[in-house]
């Protein structure tokens, strides 16, 4: 066996290449910059395009233009850049433009700490758009996940025609580790569904689906717009048409919840506590669980890889046998509210830490021990 050695950011770039990404635009920002650096090394030899925008707004704007020309696009930033992307993200949602956005999170609020990790943006990614339309957010826990989840992210972006986020973290993005890329199970690459037939209406779609695509620059004329539009891509004020579109934008993602749900679990028989976590924190949770088992106090663990849409069915199913749920997050408690909403009848304990350092396994053992 040969192990590779790379940081999470390089693995996201490699995942993007494996998914067929052929356009990247970004603006330097710690701790995401090395995704840009990697794409700049990898895309030109493969015939792809890699550009540095004059700012974050431009970078994602370039991606929107390129995606509408039919390219598979990636951009990468951190929390302050997501803020600047926000209006364009809304465009991506409303215009149903496939985009993959890597957010290598750092400690917020605001400029915060460039080189300190935190899962700062978990709610921001979901709600940082005008309209409140659902998006897809995947959370890697290690370098291998960065590689694999990036391919999933592209597949979802192409299928659902929406922005898909990879919610990484400085502690994964800039940590180098050994990874067996050969053992990674990559999903089959999904291509954008193209329109066939005549009389193309760019936003005409089945009730819970994304519309089929045609590129700007192809034989059939295409309209794209950030304004409220009907199936023809022209502004509409027809309440029924508007309501149908809003519903479809939500349904196409929410009704596919189970298919989008990615997770890992370690279920131990006879345990009454389930520890739920995501991202880099889940590694400390797993370490803690191993130690607790050795001490004769085993717990079960559930690591969420899909945060949005909230994997409600999975949560209910997995939590069912447990009396107690413990949620650990590298923030002040951004996701525990979702879990409390879904698991209303459960006793849910929470520990959050947002101080620029990783939560230690011993701290997690202490939290689990404090019933």
């Amino acid at each position: 066996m040969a192990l590779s050695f790379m940081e999470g950011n390089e693995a996201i770039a490699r995942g993007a290449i494996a998914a067929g990404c052929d356009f990247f635009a970004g603006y330097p920002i710690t701790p995401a910059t090395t995704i840009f650096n990697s794409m700049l090394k990898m895309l030109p030899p493969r015939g792809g395009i890699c550009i540095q925008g004059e700012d974050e707004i431009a970078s994602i704007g370039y991606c929107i233009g390129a995606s509408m020309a039919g390219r598979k696009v990636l951009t990468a930033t951190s929390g302050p850049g997501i803020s600047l992307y926000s209006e364009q993200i809304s465009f991506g949602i409303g215009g149903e433009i496939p985009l993959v956005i890597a957010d290598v999170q750092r400690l917020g609020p605001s400029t915060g700490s460039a080189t300190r990790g935190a899962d700062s943006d978990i709610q921001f990614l979901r709600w940082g758009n005008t309209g409140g339309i659902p998006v897809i957010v995947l959370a890697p826990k290690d370098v291998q996940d960065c590689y694999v989840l990036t391919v999933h992210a592209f597949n979802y972006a192409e299928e659902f025609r929406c922005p898909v986020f990879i919610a990484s973290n400085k502690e994964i993005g800039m940590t180098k580790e050994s990874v067996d890329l050969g053992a990674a199970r990559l999903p089959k690459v999904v291509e954008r569904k193209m329109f066939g037939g005549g009389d193309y209406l760019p936003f005409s779609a089945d009730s819970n689906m994304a519309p089929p695509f045609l590129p700007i620059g192809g034989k059939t004329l295409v309209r794209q717009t950030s304004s409220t539009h009907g199936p023809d891509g022209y502004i509409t004020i027809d309440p029924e048409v508007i309501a149908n579109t809003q519903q479809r934008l939500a349904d196409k993602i929410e009704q596919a919840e189970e298919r989008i749900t990615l997770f890992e679990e370690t279920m131990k028989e006879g345990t009454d506590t389930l520890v739920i976590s995501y991202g880099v924190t889940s590694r400390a949770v797993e370490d803690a669980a191993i130690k607790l088992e050795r001490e004769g106090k085993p717990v079960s663990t559930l690591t969420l890889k899909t945060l949005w849409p909230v994997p409600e069915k999975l949560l209910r199913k997995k939590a069912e046998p447990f009396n107690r749920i413990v949620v650990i997050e590298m923030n002040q408690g951004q996701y525990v509210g979702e879990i409390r909403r879904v698991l209303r009848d459960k006793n849910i304990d929470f520990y959050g830490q947002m101080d620029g350092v990783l939560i230690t396994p011993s701290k997690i053992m202490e939290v689990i021990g404090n019933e």
Partner: protein
Amino acid sequence: MNSFLNVNRPPVFCPGCTHEKITQGLDKALVQLGLRPDKTVIVSDIGCSGLFDTFFNVHALHGLHGRALTYAFGLKLANPELNVIVTMGDGGLGIGGAHVLASCRKNPDITLIVLNNFNFGMTGGQYSVTTPADAITGSEFLNRAEIPLDICAVAESAGATWIDRCSGQDSDLAEHIVKAVRHKGFSVVETLGLCTGRYTKRNKLTPKILDQMIADLPVRNGLVEKNARPEYGELYRKFAAEKTHFPEPVTIEKRFSLEKPEPQEVVILGSAGMRIVTAGDIVCYAGLSAGMNVSMKNDYNITVLRGQSVSEILISPEKIGYAGIKAPTVVLALSEEGVQRRKNIFKTLSPSTFVLKEKSVEIPDTGAEVHEIDFKSYKISKPDWALASLGFLADKEKLFTSEMLQFAIRSRFNEKVSASALETVAKLMGN
């Protein structure tokens, strides 16, 4: 084709608005140019100029206020065959100024038509970046405290290769647009116009006055000789084509077997310029060569040339979970700054922890096994201390054997650098 106008979507401007004339002028220009509709896209943003994408039978992209040039640039790079025409008002020009400057500097083959009517028509006639200071606007007195922007002058200093200014009422407007579209590179056509719904209600402005304004401004009539240069996409593709080497991942085959593989936690405490991260890489490569899992976290300042540089490495026969340091097994104390950064770990070290300190470096009290080296006595300079320490570790069979270290160095560096690195570590081996 006689007209590109979409008969189902006629212009909807206020009576007398110059935008209507520009719609006709642009249509005439498209006909004269004989562009293929399916190879042409109109990109617009917000405001009355943002209605343009609906009037023409070409591809259309209507986006956010001031960001039209960003989509245009993405479209043009992704599909160089596209004729990309952007319409933007003086509002978009102001809010999207960074993109106008970038387009002038980059020189993509995109045509920007600025529809300057001196105010925000849609929202009530507020002042924009081009509103004269003495105009009466919907912004009370605010424009009186500012001066208007001459976009043509700004475009020239930003490197635009084609700058033209005319009245939107001009009978030869189409000619201006035709020339701009034919120009290979970024072309800016500033049209001055009348906003009859807002601006001319409160300010005296007529086609004749527009002509006089243009006459009073410096002449802008097309090619800017001093900025002439190749188009962005052509240059980009030329340079990118020279990049043929795809970087494969660093992959290390297992070639050594450790008798008793044990988890290790290594902390290297140094300063910027001491190649701490490189030494960390080598430790990891050595671990990988024995089939171990590794992880490495680095801590250094954003200003990379000064301050601490700390590398924290885990080596383990098991998959690594928590990637922080809990109980170091090896600590290399190579600079005061590095030691200060992690001074709290010293009192926690167990007696079996292997601490290597440079002679000049002070460390806090510790119960660990401390070794001291005077690198100067080996004639090893500070940037090589971290590397040389690895020789000392190999000599004591700590973390790796000398064969593993030599292999790691050869894998990490090219032949020339390896040779001198191997010499450096050899100074600390076999003593």
